[in-house]
């Protein structure tokens, strides 16, 4: 038993820290950030950054001095970015990333994953509320407001595929969705999930929490150096994982790394297109959008699914 345990531990550690989680995931997230920025630049008729730019940014930030402002809880200030990154990296364990079966799995891991992804937003909100900076405070308020707005519809949108697959376990859902394009049968759920991801990652047009022309960098205004780098990494990882989740659920699964690449990048193109096309929404408009349309759409979707299943039975 002893040798197998050590082997198991080694395998688990590798999976957590190097491949497919950990280091590999971080690199992939930096690559996706580059694709995001490059696509946006090309859509705006600009040149855009070179491939190593996100990595250079991160290394630079990591190497820089981290200034801990007065009148903050220092342990929280330093700890929150770590928790955020750790949370999203943990979420990767239950994901079919990158086109491989999930490493870990247990019934109900979908809920855990979604909440691990939300941990980034909660950490952001806490980080903003932790400082006395007025931009941070407004940013934190907006971050948390937005969290309450999109979280329920986003979760409902992800539960749609779970409902038809009759399981709350990601590995079972993806084996059901493999080859089935739920995008066609559940279009509203797909739309809400994509826009929910945009809201979660505070990508324009839903970037009111960090609208630079109003509140500088929102909750992250006081962050510099390492903390900022970790938060950025966490957001990058959350983007990749969000894309994976939506592609696996709605776009016919990501059974192989190639399919993963194609489908997530296509999804990224859509998100960048939305980013480029629309004006930033005010926070009241964002909340209105979610509660007026987002939730309603998902509920209509659910009603449809329930009726359909009733008919089938």
């Amino acid at each position, binding site marked *: 038993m002893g040798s197998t345990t050590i082997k198991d531990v080694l395998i688990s550690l590798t999976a957590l820290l190097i491949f497919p989680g950990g280091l590999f995931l971080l690199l992939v997230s930096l690559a996706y950030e580059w694709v995001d920025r490059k*696509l946006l*630049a*090309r*859509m*705006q*008729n*600009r*040149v*855009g950054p070179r491939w190593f730019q996100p990595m250079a940014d991160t290394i630079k930030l990591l190497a820089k001095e981290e200034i801990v402002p007065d009148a903050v809880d220092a342990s929280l200030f330093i700890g929150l970015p770590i928790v955020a990154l750790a949370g999203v990296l943990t979420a990767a364990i239950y994901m079919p990333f990158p086109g491989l079966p999930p490493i870990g799995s247990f019934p109900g891991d979908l809920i855990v994953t979604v909440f691990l992804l939300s941990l980034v937003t909660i950490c952001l909100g806490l980080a903003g509320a932790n400082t006395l900076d007025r931009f941070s405070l407004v940013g934190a308020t907006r971050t948390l407001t937005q969290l309450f707005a999109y979280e329920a519809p986003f979760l409902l949108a992800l539960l749609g595929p779970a409902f038809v697959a009759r399981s709350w376990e990601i590995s079972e859902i993806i084996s059901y969705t493999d080859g089935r394009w739920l995008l066609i049968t559940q279009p509203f759920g797909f739309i809400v999930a994509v826009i929910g991801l945009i809201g979660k990652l505070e990508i324009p047009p839903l970037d009111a929490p960090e609208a630079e022309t109003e509140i500088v960098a929102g909750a992250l205004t006081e962050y510099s150096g390492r903390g900022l780098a970790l938060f950025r990494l966490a957001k990058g990882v959350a983007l990749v994982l969000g894309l994976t989740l939506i592609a696996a659920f709605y776009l016919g699964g990501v059974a192989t790394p190639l399919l993963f690449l194609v489908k997530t990048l296509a999804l990224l193109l859509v998100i960048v*297109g939305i980013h*480029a*096309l*629309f004006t930033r929404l005010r926070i009241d408009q964002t909340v209105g959008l979610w509660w007026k349309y987002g939730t309603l759409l998902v509920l209509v979707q659910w009603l449809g699914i329930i009726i359909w299943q009733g008919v089938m039975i």
Partner: protein
Amino acid sequence: MKFGTMLGDLTISLFSKPSTERYPFERSETPERLRGLLIWHPEKCIGCGLCAKDCPAGALDVIVLDKESKKYQLRYYPDRCIFCGQCVYSCRQGCLEMSNEKWELAALDRSAFEIIYGECLENE
């Protein structure tokens, strides 16, 4: 009610070259009238000093070396120059002009910012 009115622009740009000019690697031609570094042609200079008098930035000094043989020296400080072209306009003899080629004037050494025209006439 219209969503995404700029979709056309985005699609065109996505499949065309960026409009940014990659400056140090590719350069577009400078216009003929570009106001770059000041050039002095000493032959016609009568040493009236109008250029220095009108210069709003104090970037010009005219020094009379020898009035008999009409030897003048023009000291020009490109770091003070605001490239307005008033000196060129003021000069009635037409001995000043602004180069449209020399316009990348950054330098690490202060000596680049003190150009003395007509200094070494004897030596040359």
